[in-house]
């Protein structure tokens, strides 16, 4: 039986559908944007980043992204032999992935830093601590932002 136009179109249609499904499903659902991972690599280099030790205190639901209180603390004895060298905070969806780098030392006594940040969108915030033995520890928090920063026009 010769292939009719209708059969051919059906076949072609299903092939297209079958072809698109893998492309859609191959895309990671929660991809780490390239800018964020590049900024993190810039700080940690090739060293592995383990999860833990770092605590990120930030409201999970933010009404105004223009000023969001943030506290990062690291579980560390802060002695001359074992202390936190630096704390780095990153975001996922602001125009720039860096938020701040904070350099501490054994004389800090407590590895804790607070500031206020801007968030342009509902997104992840990542805090990474570099300890005196040059290991890296991180924590990631998801924050919902109702009113975004940076987007408004200047009057």
């Amino acid at each position, binding site marked *: 039986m010769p292939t009719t136009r209708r059969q051919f179109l059906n076949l072609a249609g299903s092939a297209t559908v079958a072809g698109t499904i893998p492309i859609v499903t191959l895309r990671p659902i929660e991809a780490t944007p390239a800018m964020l991972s590049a900024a993190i690599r810039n700080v940690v280099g090739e060293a592995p980043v383990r999860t833990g030790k770092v605590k990120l205190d930030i409201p999970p639901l933010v009404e105004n992204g*223009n*000023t*969001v209180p943030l*506290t990062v603390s690291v579980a560390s004895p802060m002695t001359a032999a074992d202390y936190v060298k630096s704390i780095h905070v990153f*975001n996922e969806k*602001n*125009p*720039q992935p*860096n*938020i*701040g*780098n*904070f*350099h*501490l*030392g054994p*004389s*800090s*006594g*407590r*590895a*804790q*830093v*607070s*500031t*206020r*940040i*801007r*968030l342009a969108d509902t997104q992840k915030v990542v805090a990474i601590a570099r300890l005196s033995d040059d290991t890296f520890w991180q924590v990631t928090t998801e924050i919902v932002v109702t009113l975004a*920063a*940076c987007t*408004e*026009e*200047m*009057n």
Partner: protein
Amino acid sequence: MAALINVPAKARRGEIIEIRTLTSHIMETGFRHTADGALVPRDIITSFTCRYNGTEIFRADLFPAIAANPYLSFFTVAKESGKFEFEWIGDNGYSSSASASITVE
């Protein structure tokens, strides 16, 4: 230029004290546009340093994602009586400093 510094006036030797600083600055991100589409140039504080009797105890690199009027709080061990010096450095040659004294018993 105005800065608010919060350092305890007195502390016991070896005590961990909190230092809180607030300075007034617009922290213009450089990502905003005016109503007619022109980009507002970046104007932020890029660096903050705290020295305790001349020794650097805390330093921060700031980015546009830090909110206007940057607030920073951090800790240090009260070792000896003396002076804390704070310095903010930013775009367009911005520089501002402040100091606070502490008595350690």
